[in-house]
Every structure is written in structure tokens, then in C-alpha cells.
């Protein structure tokens, strides 16, 4: 290679401090077990101390053997001592760059850089860790190679930040060329209890709390009397108390995740999000990879007039929680504004959608009512063999009513629309989302018909794509309409098979 002399770069030496901390955190359960075991034994050999030099040695070895460089239109990452590994990625395949700084990274002014070049776990290069400004410069180099003139410009999210001891890089102001699309309003925390993720986090927190309480109950006089007090209360007070606890925990989770959330767009159109209270996270998405947006409107958020926004892009892994969020739960108007701004297509975000017709409604109702009836019958049979009280029969109408509501609401969620630049698809009830997918992002079609769909004369039209969830479905449209949509978006393709 002609430019073989391009300099290899190393990770920041301060990662040597981070590595032992991370290892200790990861081994914390084992260490605790060891400590407990030692407390109960007579041996006073400090075994755990022997491990420390080993951990440090591993860190030093990693620092010495990990090198990276950008050369000849590629980024190369080399690591390993005996088993040398070289990972190479074409620069024009780089899709997203992630900077994550946990609390201990921030104290040292470091950030972990993750470079994604495809959809899979193998398609990523991880540099743990670089200095924050160096990470940002690398990101600029990676995402801006399109125009060599631009690579000379300052880093995309602003002037390299001088990180002080408290690591307040969240408050760094963007360079004047960056356009700010959204900034977190602290008042939005009120939406946290209405999201499923918020509630799930809260539930996990409550569960953890109960376990912890269970562990120390024997000694905890205060806790014991506390539980007694809670038991003594009326049921509605208990429910209220639970709601308050869940809401507070959800709000805490929201603050931890989204504090200082900001979405900016630089002059090349790349999107940058930055968020987090303790662990800060910056995600940069090359605008050339954006294939659309997804407006989430789950039932809880609909109830309070809120929405949230995600980006549909290639190169983000789905399990990487929240990397694709463009707006956290926020007022609908705000989300619509940002969504319109990103896709530059009003109709795709706000225009009414075409409903899917009676057959779709019938199928939604069948799917919610039949299982409910089945469960009720099973319960009735069960009751006839035991002698449980007949009181629960009163719940049957309630359950059926809920099932019918769910069916109707799921039907109300179904809809699609073809705009000059996008295919718009909406579905779901409790987890309703509206996706605007760029026409160019569609890389294939599937028309799927189950036995019952054929009888009802409907089909599920699937637009496959490399971005986001990799397929977006138009559920239960009439067969004729399915082919019309395909025709409208990919006329050449259908012309082949007339």
C-alpha cells in the first residue's frame, strides 16, 4: 500500500485507569462473594489483591496492542498480542458513530467510540477509550469524508470541548453552523410515567427494592414496621402509593436517560443527538443513511397528547437501546415539527391515512375476541370442576368489552399513504407507530396471504428495507390496493411482471 506509513494512533493512555475500574465493576458480584466467604473463614490471605496486578497488566497489554489508523479510504483497527486481529472498514460504509461516556469516562475526559458499518454486531469497531475531543475529531473525519473541503472544518458538534474535572460536556454549545432541532424541556419529564419503557424501568426498580428489602428484613426494624404500616392501609391508598412510586421512578429514569437531550443538524445534514445525566451519549447519523422517521404514539402517550420520534436509518443496531431516538417523549406538536423538518414532507407526518377497510376491522376483532372467549370458556370449565365463587363471572363482560375496544383501536391504528417521496404506514394500538419510509429505501416487496387472508380477500404488503426494523408492513389491505401501492412506488419493477 502506498500510504503504509500513515501513522498508527493509540487509545488514550488514561484508559489504563478505566480498565481496572470496569473489570472490578464487572466482577463486583464475585468480589462480594469472596469477601463474604473470607469473613466467615479463618484464612487471612488477601486473595483478591493478587488479582489486581493481573487486571492492570491486561489493561497495559491492551493499550500497547490496540492501534488504529485511517488510510487509503479505510479505517483499520488492530489488536491482540498473540492472536492478532485486524478489522478494516471502508470509510464510505461508515453509517453511524457513537460516543458514550460513562461517569468514570467523564471524570477523565474520555469517551468510548463505536463505529458502525453495517447491521450486525461484527460490523462495528470499538475504540475504548479516546479523549472526548479526539473522539469528536475522529467522528468528523469519518462522517465527512464526502467533501474533503469540509474535513477542515471544526468538529460537527462544536469546538473541541475542554473537559473539566466534572466533565460537563453536555452543556457544551454547538458551533454556530449547527442547527438545533430540539432541546429537552425539563417539563417533559411529566410524560415519563406514560411510557412503557418508563414503567418497565420503574417495575425493575421496584422489584430490585423488594429483593433488597427481603435480604435485610431480619435486621431492618424500620423496614419491618414500614411494611406493617403499608399493610394496614386501605387498598386504594396502596394503589395510589404504588402509582406515585412508579411515576417517580419513571421520571428518574427519564432524567438519567435524556437529561440535556439535544438534536442538532450540521451543514451536511448529519443528525447528532446528545443525552444523558451520568452516562452521556452522543450519536451521529450520516444523513445519507437516513431512510425516514418513526413517530411513536403508544396508548399512554396518546392519552396525554405526547409522542416520541425515532429515526429509521441503516447501521443502527436495534438492541442498542435508544440510539435511534430523535425526540424523547414530548408534546405532539414538537415531535411533528421535528419529524417534518427531518423528512421535509408534511404529508408524510401529518396527512390522514387511508383506512384498510371492513375485512381488516373484522380480522382485528376476531383476533382479540376469539382468544378472550376461549379463555373465558376455559375458566368456566375450570370453575365447574372446582367450587370457586361465581363472582368472577362479572368480569366476563368487562374482559369482552376491553377486547372489543382493543380490536377497534387496533383497526383505527391501521393506515397507509403514498406521498411523492414516502411510503407511510401506521399500525398498533398500545404500541402504535407511524413510519414514513423513503421510497428509495424500499429494496423489495412481499405480498403475504395466510389461508384466512385469502378467504377475506386481503393481504399483508411488506416493504423490505435495510433500515430500521428491516421491514414495514401494510397489514390487511385489499389485494388490489396492495399491488396499487407497489405500482405507485416501484412502477418499473411491476412492469416486468404484467
Amino acid at each position, binding site marked *: 500500500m502506498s500510504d503504509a506509513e500513515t501513522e498508527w494512533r493509540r487509545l488514550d493512555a488514561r484508559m489504563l485507569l478505566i480498565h481496572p475500574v470496569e473489570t472490578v465493576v464487572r466482577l463486583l458480584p464475585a468480589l462480594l462473594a469472596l469477601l463474604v466467604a473470607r469473613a466467615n473463614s479463618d484464612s487471612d490471605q488477601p486473595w483478591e489483591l493478587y488479582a489486581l496486578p493481573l487486571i492492570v497488566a491486561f489493561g497495559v497489554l491492551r493499550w500497547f496492542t490496540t492501534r488504529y489508523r485511517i488510510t487509503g479510504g479505510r479505517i483499520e483497527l488492530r489488536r491482540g498480542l498473540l492472536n492478532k486481529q485486524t478489522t478494516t472498514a471502508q470509510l464510505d460504509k461508515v453509517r453511524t458513530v457513537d460516543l458514550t461516556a460513562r461517569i468514570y469516562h467523564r471524570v477523565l475526559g474520555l469517551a468510548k467510540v463505536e463505529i458502525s458499518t453495517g447491521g450486525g454486531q461484527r460490523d462495528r469497531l470499538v475504540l475504548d477509550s479516546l479523549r472526548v475531543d479526539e473522539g469528536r475529531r475522529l467522528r468528523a473525519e469519518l462522517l465527512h469524508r464526502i467533501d474533503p473541503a469540509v474535513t477542515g472544518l471544526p468538529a460537527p458538534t462544536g469546538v473541541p470541548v475542554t473537559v473539566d474535572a466534572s466533565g460537563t460536556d453536555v452543556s457544551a454549545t454547538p458551533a454556530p453552523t449547527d442547527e438545533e432541532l430540539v432541546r429537552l424541556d425539563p417539563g417533559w419529564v411529566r410524560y415519563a410515567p406514560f411510557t412503557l419503557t418508563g414503567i418497565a424501568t420503574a417495575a425493575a426498580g421496584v422489584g430490585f427494592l423488594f429483593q433488597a428489602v427481603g435480604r435485610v428484613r431480619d435486621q431492618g426494624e424500620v423496614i419491618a414496621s414500614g411494611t406493617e404500616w403499608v399493610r394496614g392501609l386501605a387498598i386504594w391508598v396502596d394503589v395510589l402509593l404504588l402509582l406515585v412510586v412508579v411515576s417517580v421512578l419513571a421520571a428518574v429514569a427519564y432524567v438519567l436517560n435524556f437529561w440535556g437531550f439535544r438534536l442538532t443538524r450540521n451543514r451536511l445534514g448529519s443528525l447528532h443527538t446528545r443525552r444523558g445525566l451520568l452516562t452521556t451519549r452522543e450519536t451521529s447519523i450520516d444523513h445519507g443513511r437516513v431512510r425516514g422517521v418513526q413517530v411513536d404514539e403508544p396508548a399512554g402517550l396518546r392519552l396525554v397528547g405526547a409522542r416520541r420520534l425515532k429515526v429509521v436509518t441503516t447501521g443502527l443496531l436495534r438492541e442498542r437501546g435508544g440510539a435511534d431516538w430523535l425526540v424523547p417523549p414530548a408534546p405532539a406538536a414538537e415531535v411533528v415539527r421535528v419529524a417534518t423538518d427531518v423528512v421535509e414532507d408534511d404529508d408524510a407526518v401529518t396527512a390522514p391515512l387511508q383506512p384498510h377497510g371492513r375485512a381488516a376491522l373484522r380480522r382485528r376483532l376476531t383476533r382479540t375476541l376469539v382468544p378472550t372467549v376461549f379463555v373465558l370458556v376455559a375458566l368456566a370449565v375450570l370453575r365447574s370442576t372446582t367450587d370457586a365463587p361465581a363472582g368472577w363471572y362479572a368480569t366476563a363482560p368487562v374482559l369482552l368489552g376491553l377486547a372489543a375496544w382493543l380490536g377497534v383501536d387496533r383497526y383505527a391504528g391501521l393506515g397507509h399513504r403514498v406521498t411523492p417521496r414516502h411510503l407511510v404506514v401506521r399500525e398498533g394500538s398500545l404500541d402504535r407507530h407511524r413510519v414514513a419510509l423513503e421510497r428509495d429505501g424500499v429494496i423489495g416487496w412481499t405480498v403475504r396471504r395466510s389461508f384466512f387472508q385469502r378467504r377475506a380477500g386481503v393481504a399483508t404488503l411488506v416493504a423490505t*428495507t435495510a433500515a430500521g426494523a428491516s421491514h414495514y408492513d401494510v397489514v390487511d389491505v385489499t389485494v388490489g390496493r396492495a399491488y396499487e401501492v407497489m405500482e405507485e412506488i416501484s412502477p418499473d419493477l411491476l412492469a416486468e411482471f404484467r
Partner: protein
Amino acid sequence: MWHRGRMQTEEATTLRAPANLVSRRAVTLWTVEALVPVTGLLVAQVVWWLADDDPDRGVHWLVGAAWLLVSVAYVLVMPRWRWRVHRWEATGRAIYTQTGWVRQERRIAPMSRVQTVDLERGPIAQLLGLASVTVTTASAAGPLRIHALDLPVATELVETLSAAAVLEKGDAT
């Protein structure tokens, strides 16, 4: 069969079925493949018969009858039904397949988005001189599979597709 007639009358106005049928030996292949799980269930039943100490064999006969009914239907009907549904077509610009039996699918992908073309031959397929072709696109949800082609047809298809895919530039996302 009614399901085909129905599909054709409904969809003739917009899209015809793909032109080519798969190999006639596909029926044999699918029959053999169907025998594998059916035989597995039979073995399980024999083991149950031998292991059960209860002198009353009524339940065994009942389950056995159900097994016989479902198995015969599956082994006889599924391969023939699938053979009537499975079709494929490849032009210079697109590839088009129709698969399934109870659940039927039509898939279309433009040649410009094709990333890889694979030829697969299982042990039974090798004995019968058959091969399957899998065409993947950049979408995790979009592979197109053409099952049970005659080997010469399959190899020719792979060559055509590979040549066409190479001509296209970009990363096909």
C-alpha cells in the same frame, strides 16, 4: 385447486404469477422431508407405548389415530399443494418468487438491490439432482428463496444473477 383460481382471478389485473414452475421432483423432495418429523413422532409414540405400564391402551389408540390422520394428510397434501404454488421468474432487472402453501407469499426484489446469491443442496436434494437458490438483499427481512430447482437450471440462474448483480454499483441499501 380453488386457492390458485382465486389468486389468479383477483390478481390478474395487477400482477401475473411468476412464469416458471419448480422441478417436478420437488414433490419427492418435500415428501421425504415431511417424513422426517412424521417418523420422529411415530418413534416417540412407540417409546410411549413401551414405557407406559397402564394396561388400558385407549389413549394410545386415540393419539395414534390422530397421528395417522395428520401425517397422511401432511405427507400427501403438503408437497403437491406447495408444488402448485411455488413459482419463480428472473429477468435482467428483477427477481420474483411465489412460495408457500397454507400461507403464500410473493416476493419481488430489483436486481440492483441483490447482495448475495447462494446455491444450497441438502443430502436428499443431492440424490434427486436438485438445488435451492437464495437471493439476499441488504434487508434482513428480504431473502428470496427458490426451492427445489433442477441442478442445471439452478446453476444457470446463479450465474445469471451474479453477473447481473456485479453490474450494479453502490451498497444497495
